[in-house]
Every structure is written in C-alpha cells, then in structure tokens.
C-alpha cells in the first residue's frame, strides 16, 4: 500500500504549546490546504533542508507550528525585506515569504513591490481571502465592492474606501519577476492547479532563476459568514470575478541563473596597508594651531583645507578637518576648519581661528570678525574689506582668483591661496610638505599637477614681489 499523506510538517505541533495535531485555523480555512501543498512541494523537490519560511503577521503567523523548515517571524508587512536579506546572504537557501492580504497588500505593499522590482530570489505566496482574518475580519485592500466587514459594516464603498487592489496585476507591471500566477483553493480542480503553481515557484527557486509571485484565492469561512462550503463558493462566484485566475507571466525559460556569490578580498591588500606607521612629531612643548577656510561652493575651499590637513599629518601632527555640510555645501557658503596639534585635539570646530582664508565677500562679512587677536587673515583681492577691521589682526590680500585665471586654470584659485599661505608661513608647516600634499591630492588626475604647480609658483612669486613674507612688515 502507498499512502497519500502530509509531508514536511511536524508530527505533533508542540510549538503551539500543546500536543495537538490540529491547526489553529478555523474549520474550512484555505490556509491549511495551502500549507499542505507547500510542504509537499518542498519535500518532493528535495528542498526541505534548504527552505526558510518568513512567517507573516496575520493568520499564518503560526505557520512555524507546522512547517518543518527554518522559520522566522516578520514584522507586519516586512516579510519581503527580511526575505531579501536572507536570500542575499544565504544564496543556497530557498526563501519563502508567505503573506496574507493585510500584510502584503496594505502595510507591506511598498516592500512587496520593491522586493519584486529588485527581482529578489524568493517565492512569495500571497493568500488573498479579501479580509483581515486574525484581527477580526476587517476590510483589506482586496475586499470586494459591497463586501461587509467589521470596518465596512455597510459594505465596501468605493467613494470612501476605494477600489480593490489587484496584486498579481500590479506585480506584473514590473520587469524582473519570473513567474506570476493567480490560483485558488476553492475546489479540487483549482487546488490541483494551485499545487502545480506552488511547485513551479519552488522549482524556480531551486534553479536560482528569480522572483516568483503566486496569489492564492482562499476561503475564510469565519469572515465570509457562512459554512466552509459557502465560503468556497464565495471564492468561486465572487472573488474570482474580481481576481481572475490564470498565469500572468512565465519567463522561466529565458530567466538567467543567479551567479555564484563573490569571494572575499583581503582587506589589508584592498586598502594597500603596508603596515607602516605615521611619523610622530616630537615637540618640546604642546602647540595647537586652529585654521579656517571660507568662501563659496566650487572654489575648492574644502580641498584646500584637506591639503593643509594632509601636510600636517605627514608632519606627524594630530589633525582634524571639519567641513560645513548639508544643503549649504551644494552651491552656497563653503567653509572648513583644520586643527593641528602635538597632542590629542579637543574641539574640531574653530570659533576663533588664528588663520583665516577668505575667498568671497559673503565669507568676509561672516568670518573676518572672528579672527583671534594676533592672527592672520588671507583674503582674495576681489573682496572689499569692511570699514571696521578687527583689531590686532594682520590682513593680507592677494589676487588669487586673478592669478589662477591668468594661468588658465580658474578653478585653481585655492592653489594660489596655498601659495600665499606658504609665502606667509601662515601654517607652521614646511613648504615641501604642503607642496607634496598638494600633488598627492591630484594623484587621480596627474595631468593637472603641472598647471597647479604653475599657479602655486605664480602666487608665491607675487608675494615675494610684494614683500609679503612671514615677517610682519
């Protein structure tokens, strides 16, 4: 004798906290039929060990009582997100998202569509019974027009409740799903079609072909308010009219097989870590310098600060660089601060810089007054200085923008400023370290090194010509 019996489920449902062999579902509920078809399929296809089912919020929340496969409970509507991660990280797993209509089509609609749009390797089984079952028969996105539920007691009204969502058709708008079919478990003929569809979806997972979506119309005798047979009839006579059965898409033949995952790359090699240590600046006494660079987005303010910070680092100093950021970095004021120190640096933000670079008028108005007494401000010549100047601050203007233009590299005004800073010995960093840092900053565009070197030299020449040095005039 051969026995036609349930496969792939636990013999006794001890996870429910009892010794029962009955489900928690109401009599005549379609979930049980679908559960059996699914477990039969993963056993017959030899996939039981590889299967992970993401259990939804909804009546099937306790699917793991029954299915003898890997199980995890999702948050409401989030089964596709969880299945995405499991499938991406464990590519040999057969990942199943089993969801009802409140979970998949209401709270989880966005996640459902996004996972389908990404073509995640997962089998989605969508149990459409036109109702929220577990929470007590409320209206779902799939509830039919005129259908009475606990939250549409007079029947779903399109004027206030909208129209039913057709999930299989929605998914069919997307490019990557491989297989989309709507089936039903209302009678024998339909159950056998559903059985085929469920097996096909798992075969596609087994063959690493991609996303599958099987919508299953299912009776909910409790909420459809009749006998189990009435509910099955309701599915055939009413639900099917709104949600016609059939295969919407099958591109199994042409779908590409998922590639094998990449192998890990050694990180030391990836980052070019040669095991070297940065030099450490040996100083007799603690010395901290605080700089600020200001101007307009696009003038290279942030990269100028980075070159200075990089040079300080090469000198063995502790260094921080802090940019202005957020919306303002896209076309408004630009500023960054650099702090160099022989000891651990506290605040990276600089309220009162001892050296300030100003490259446009707005920055002048905002920052010139903040310079620390005894400090230096290097200002582009296009900036008109205010009538009232800060006390005890050396203000030097050089035509940085003009020098850059004259050398045919208008974008290199920041480099001309660097030339000025070197000439003025404003940073307490040796010139050769600053020049090397500048050249390092063009490592990815070596063609630009020569022209920038020219601009730098022109600015330094300008300063020498005008007697601008570190010595106070």
């Amino acid at each position, binding site marked *: 004798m*051969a026995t036609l019996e349930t496969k792939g489920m636990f013999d006794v449902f001890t996870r429910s906290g009892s010794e029962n062999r009955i489900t928690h579902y109401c*009599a005549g509920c379609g979930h049980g039929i679908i559960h059996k078809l699914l477990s039969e399929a993963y056993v017959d296809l030899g996939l039981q060990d590889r299967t992970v089912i993401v259990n939804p919020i909804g009546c099937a929340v306790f699917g793991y009582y029954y299915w003898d496969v890997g199980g995890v409970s999702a948050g409401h509507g989030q089964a596709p997100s969880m299945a995405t991660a499991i499938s991406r990280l464990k590519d040999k797993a057969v990942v199943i998202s089993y969801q009802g209509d409140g979970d998949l089509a209401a709270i989880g609609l966005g996640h459902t569509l996004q996972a389908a749009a990404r073509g995640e390797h997962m089998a989605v089984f969508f149990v459409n019974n036109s109702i929220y079952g577990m929470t007590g028969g409320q209206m779902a996105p799939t509830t039919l027009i005129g259908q009475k539920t606990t939250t549409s007691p007079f029947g779903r009204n399109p004027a206030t409740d909208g129209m039913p969502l057709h999930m299989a058709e929605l998914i069919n708008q997307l490019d990557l799903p491989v297989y989309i079919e709507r089936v039903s478990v209302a009678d024998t003929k339909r159950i056998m079609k559903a059985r085929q569809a469920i097996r096909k979806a798992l075969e596609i997972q087994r063959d690493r072909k991609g996303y599958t979506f099987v919508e299953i119309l299912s009776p909910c005798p409790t909420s459809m308010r009749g006998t189990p047979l009435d509910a099955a009839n309701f599915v055939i006579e009413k639900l099917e009219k709104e949600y016609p059965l059939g295969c919407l898409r099958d591109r199994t033949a042409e779908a590409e097989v998922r590639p094998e995952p990449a192998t890990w790359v050694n990180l030391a090699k990836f980052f070019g870590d040669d095991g070297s240590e940065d030099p450490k600046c040996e100083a007799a006494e603690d010395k901290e310098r605080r700089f600020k660079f200001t101007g307009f987005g696009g003038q290279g303010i942030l990269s100028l600060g980075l070159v200075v910070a990089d040079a300080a680092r090469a000198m063995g100093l502790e260094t921080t660089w802090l940019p202005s950021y957020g919306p303002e970095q896209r076309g408004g004021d630009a500023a960054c601060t650099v702090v160099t120190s022989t000891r651990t640096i506290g605040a990276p933000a600089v309220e009162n810089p001892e050296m300030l670079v100003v490259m446009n008028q707005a920055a002048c108005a905002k920052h010139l007054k903040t310079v620390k007494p005894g400090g230096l401000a290097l200002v582009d010549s296009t900036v008109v200085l205010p009538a009232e100047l800060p006390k005890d601050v050396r203000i030097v203007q050089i035509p940085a923008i003009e020098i850059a233009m004259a050398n045919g590299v208008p974008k290199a005004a920041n480099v001309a400023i660097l030339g000025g800073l070197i000439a003025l010995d404003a940073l307490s960093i040796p010139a050769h370290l600053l020049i090397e840092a500048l050249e390092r900053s063009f490592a990815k565009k070596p063609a630009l090194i020569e022209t920038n070197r020219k601009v730098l030299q022109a600015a330094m020449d300008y300063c020498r010509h005008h007697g601008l040095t570190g010595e106070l005039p």
Partner: protein
Amino acid sequence: MEKQFDLPYPRIEADSCKSCERCVAACPKGCLEISETYNRFGVKAVAYKGSGCIGCGICFYNCPEPYAIHVEKPDVAPKGGAQ
C-alpha cells in the same frame, strides 16, 4: 507472492477533523459522511462509509488539516497483471 491488490480507503484521524465537510463535498464517489459521534474536541468528524473509495486523493487535497485524512492506495500492479 504477497497479495498485490488491496482496496483503497481513506484513513481518518477523527481527532484531527474539524468537520468542515470540504472532503464530503469533494469526494467524487460520495463515500464520505459526517459521523454521528463526537471526537475529543466535540466535533462530529468525517467517516468513511466503508466502500466506494477509488483512492483518487481528492479528499486529502481538499482537507485543510494536515492529519485528518490520508488515503491508502494499493501498490501499482506489475506489468502483466497479478500472478
């Protein structure tokens, strides 16, 4: 040689039946019925009438419960029929 042919029949686990009657309605031979006795959950479980089963498995696939109804089917006869 052992006996090759048995008659098929539905093996029913009465305590797992919720009496939804899906199998009764689906059985093409009408050989299932709701019994008059109660199972331990107080449900009148389905029962086999005792004859008529052709082993088609329709009751099994219509049944929403994993363990309420199974179908025992005779082995397929070897080619050439029974010896």
